[in-house]
């Protein structure tokens, strides 16, 4: 009797756990379903040529999402230019060079940065970074793509640092010892042996960091000025800009459910989803390729 109870309990638990495991797939499909069902009507409400035009002015039914897509790209690119070098070099420093006590200080600080809510960064952007940029660069407004890029860089840095650092720590010590034994300096070892060995992990870190910046919402909404202008030259970096995420966040609250504007905002959500999906699939391919190679080495 008791044995039977145990067995039934085991069966129920196993089923529950299995279902929980599958739930992630369910959620992704649900998200995809709702984005599609609310977003695709935009294609019937608005002509395709209109949708991919250069003018976003929903009040007069101009739904050109091109400036928004490019806006997101400009800010993301700018953020990468900040976050990638700083992130990777900081990771190299923490993993390979810093003395133990400094590591113990730097790691929690980076983690703290990761934990700061994006509104806090946006807030600092408004009150500190943008006045500073306006005054030093002599701009009409401090709420520009550049301000957004700098702050988004801060958001991507923790991701890049921690994943790159893991990748560097996973390089076996024997590689380093081998190189040092050949009479190379630690500096030569880092750039000639360790970093190349951790290359795929670092690449993944960069992809995931960039993925975060594309999707970041509150900070960019608060500091980029939100003007849907087509960025056409480098000059655009010093002007207000508007991203896809900020558009959804600032306008969804005011639209009527089911209106063309509503559907177009969901359509933008679909585009964002596809962008990040692409980035993540590439990143996970990098990591699984790395896995396969290390398995081959081990077997």
């Amino acid at each position: 009797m008791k044995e039977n109870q145990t067995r039934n309990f085991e069966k129920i638990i196993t089923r529950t756990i299995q279902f929980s495991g599958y739930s992630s797939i369910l959620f992704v499909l649900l998200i995809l379903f709702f984005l599609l069902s609310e977003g695709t009507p935009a294609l019937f409400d608005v002509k395709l040529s209109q949708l991919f035009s250069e003018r976003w002015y929903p009040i007069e039914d101009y739904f050109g999402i091109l400036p928004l897509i490019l806006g997101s790209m400009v800010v993301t690119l700018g953020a990468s230019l900040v976050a990638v070098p700083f992130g990777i070099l900081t990771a190299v420093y923490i993993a390979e060079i810093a003395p133990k006590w400094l590591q113990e200080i730097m790691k929690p600080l980076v983690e703290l940065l990761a934990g700061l809510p994006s509104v806090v960064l946006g807030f600092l952007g408004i009150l500190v970074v943008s006045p500073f940029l306006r005054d030093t660069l002599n701009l009409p407004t401090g709420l520009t793509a550049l301000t957004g890029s700098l702050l988004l860089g801060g958001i991507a840095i923790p991701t890049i640092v921690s994943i790159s650092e893991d990748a560097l720590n996973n390089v076996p010590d024997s590689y380093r010892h081998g190189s040092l034994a050949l009479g190379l300096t630690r500096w030569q070892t880092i750039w000639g042996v360790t970093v190349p060995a951790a290359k795929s992990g670092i690449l993944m870190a960069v992809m995931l960091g960039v993925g975060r910046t594309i999707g970041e919402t509150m900070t960019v909404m608060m500091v980029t000025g939100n003007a849907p202008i087509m960025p056409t030259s480098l000059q655009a970096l010093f002007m207000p800009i508007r991203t896809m995420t900020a558009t959804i966040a600032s306008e969804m609250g005011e639209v009527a459910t089911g209106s063309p504007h509503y559907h177009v905002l969901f359509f933008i959500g679909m585009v964002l989803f596809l962008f990040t999906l692409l980035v993540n699939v590439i990143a996970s391919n990098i990591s699984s390729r790395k896995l396969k190679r290390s398995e081959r080495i081990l077997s």
Partner: protein
Amino acid sequence: MQQTAKKSNVVKQLRIEKLGFSLLTILSIATVIPIIAVVIYIIYLGAPAISWEFVSAMPSDGMRAGGIWPAIVGTFYLTIGTAIFSVPLGIAAAIYLSEYAPVNKVTQAIRLAIINLAGIPSVVYGLFGLGLFVIFLNFGTSILSASLTLSIMTLPVIISTTEEALRAVPQSFRVVSVSLGATKWQTIWRLVLPQAIPGILTGVVLGLERAAGETAPILFTGAAFFLPRLPNSPLDATMALPYHLFVISTQVPGMPIQIQYGTVLVLLVFVLIMNIIVTVIRSRARAKRQW
């Protein structure tokens, strides 16, 4: 002749190394100094705003005076709500992946799904929550809708840290347990989970910290612009700290700067506490670990 050439090369390399190390030191410190500066800056400017009234009173005069009590309570409710859904589900999913999942296409699909969930922008979660919970399931703009949205967003963090913690428990423990007549679940429940608890807690705290600081997912699912009373039920909308900060720093003209800095400081203290909890759990677990 050759000897000296070799020697000078070594000297040159060592000089390069020294230069490189110094450069990296400066760069890395330049990366972390702003973080310290931000913390000090916020504490310095926010502290004068903090008073008992500020953290315990309702906002008044169009949020330009009074306190932020409903926003604090709201964030607390949202965090609890998120934990109720995401913690059990996330841990169970991690147990599945670490202990049960066979190596096959379905498992691969689950992993891809989790990576995907982790990468979806927070504002897209907001859209999804609006579509599914607010409109389709008719939960309205409410704590319930917002918590459900936040929990799905938090799920990947909890799943991946928990799975890592479970996998770190040596396989040999499982074999010994089974050899003593334990079922799979008994082994997990009595042996594997207790050993993985510190790692799981770390993941849970980090996940909830993120959820509590998020604004975009609750914008259209549960956040109230201004609601000078506490929510009565899970179906009520609520104020929340991050959203409140967004509102008072961008949407309300003539907002006293002090109140803004005070609100930031409260958010920062919350984040600091979460981070300290994580650090303490980790170091205590490291000291107590038996393997």
